[in-house]
């Protein structure tokens, strides 16, 4: 009998979205526990005492934390489509660009969305530069096929793809272009393809909804801050 799978997280987090996409790709049934905005549940804090962050995957009650660690765990434990490529060299390439994407995109996008302080134009330039690198990576990894993973999407598609909703939200809030067909045509086409995929469609947050969410989150965090002694 298979052990229950639970994801503790929030629909707006790209780190959570990527875990859900991976589980859907594998055809794994799971329970999604949505965290309250601006507040961490006791379950989250107990399951991830080190970082106190989402997502947490609970498999038969055992927690796995850190999204890239979770993705590899899901790939190794559940049968079905492979997420990481088979060849060790290509696996290293996917892992490299996944770490690069998280290092370059996450904080810069949060800056553009006004979630953290910083110059929005500088942040936009950092994101654009990173996307130009990922455009080249896409050409190399895909070898002309539709995805970083080749004929079907894989690890790197899921990691970079989990930011697509945020690209849209950042553009609306900052009024600055993020994913630009002119400078990164392959990536723009790939993004549309990725979002239309049946394993992604219902999980990719809508940009307008993310903009609204950002406002709700900011208000909740400000309320928490003003309550602290």
């Amino acid at each position, binding site marked *: 009998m298979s052990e229950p799978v639970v994801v503790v997280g929030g629909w707006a987090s790209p780190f959570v979205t990527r875990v859900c996409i991976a589980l859907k790709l594998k055809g794994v049934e799971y329970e999604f526990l949505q965290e309250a905005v601006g507040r961490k549940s006791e379950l989250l804090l107990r399951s991830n005492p080190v970082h106190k962050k989402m997502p947490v995957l609970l498999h038969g009650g055992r927690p796995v934390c850190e999204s890239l660690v979770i993705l590899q765990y899901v790939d*190794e434990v559940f049968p079905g489509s492979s997420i990481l490529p088979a060849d060790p060299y290509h696996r290293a390439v996917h892992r490299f660009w996944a770490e690069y994407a998280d290092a370059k995109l996450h904080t810069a996008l949060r800056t553009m969305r006004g979630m953290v302080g910083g110059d929005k134009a500088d942040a936009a330039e950092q994101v654009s530069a990173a996307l130009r690198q990922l455009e080249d990576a896409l050409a190399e990894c895909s070898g002309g096929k539709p995805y970083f993973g080749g004929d079907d999407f894989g690890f790197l598609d899921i990691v970079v793809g989990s930011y697509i909703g945020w690209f849209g939200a950042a553009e609306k809030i900052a009024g600055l272009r993020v994913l630009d067909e002119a400078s990164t045509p392959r990536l723009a086409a790939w993004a549309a393809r990725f979002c239309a995929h049946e394993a992604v469609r219902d999980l990719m947050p809508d940009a307008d909804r993310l903009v609204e969410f950002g406002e709700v989150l900011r208000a909740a965090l400000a309320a928490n801050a003003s309550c602290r002694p």
Partner: protein
Amino acid sequence: MAEPVKLIGTFGSPFVHRAEVALRLKGVPYELILEDLTNKSELLLRHNPIHKSVPVLLHGDRPAICESLLIVEYIDEAFDGPPLLPIDPYDRAMARFWAQFIEQKCAKPFWMALWLNDGDKREVFVKEAKENMALLESRLHGKRFFAGDTVGYLDFAACGLALVLGVLAEVTGLSLVGEDEFPLLRRWADDYTSEETVKACLPPREQLVAHFSGKKDRIKLAVNAMACQM
């Protein structure tokens, strides 16, 4: 015939050490190319244009593999020999989690705590470093090495800690850890650096002490300049 393996590194780097010890445990012959990071070679810049750092692994004709922990995973997957990561997927996830913890949460506070001039700022980093060391200490309960009875991936990931507790403590005259603190980590550092395969690719302690003593002023300058911008 086996494809040639080259490792671009630099003397005394714990990141390069991770790749070397992994290759040795797998029994993979390799050529070590040492870089002077104050004067980076065209070879390094060509093979790691994104980060311009070491280590870089060249395996046959393949484009370079960069980032030390990714190199260790590649070595584990590409070559036969004893496994470097645990076999069980949950244990693998734990090893990757703690390796990431060491990368993201330990490297910087330890480094800053060792080299900062400002006592107040240093105290903040020492506190953070010790909180993180307590978490690592708890991973060693009932185990000789992080990986179990023999060294593995998580030990390599933590090797910088052995450097901090040993060589760098001597060079800076700063022991971040009191004699009665973190006994399991201090014992691990001794056991790790004495382990046969590890020892074979670690420079002798006196050489490491001399190397870091020679760089002391340059490191202090860079770290304190960085601290001013924080």
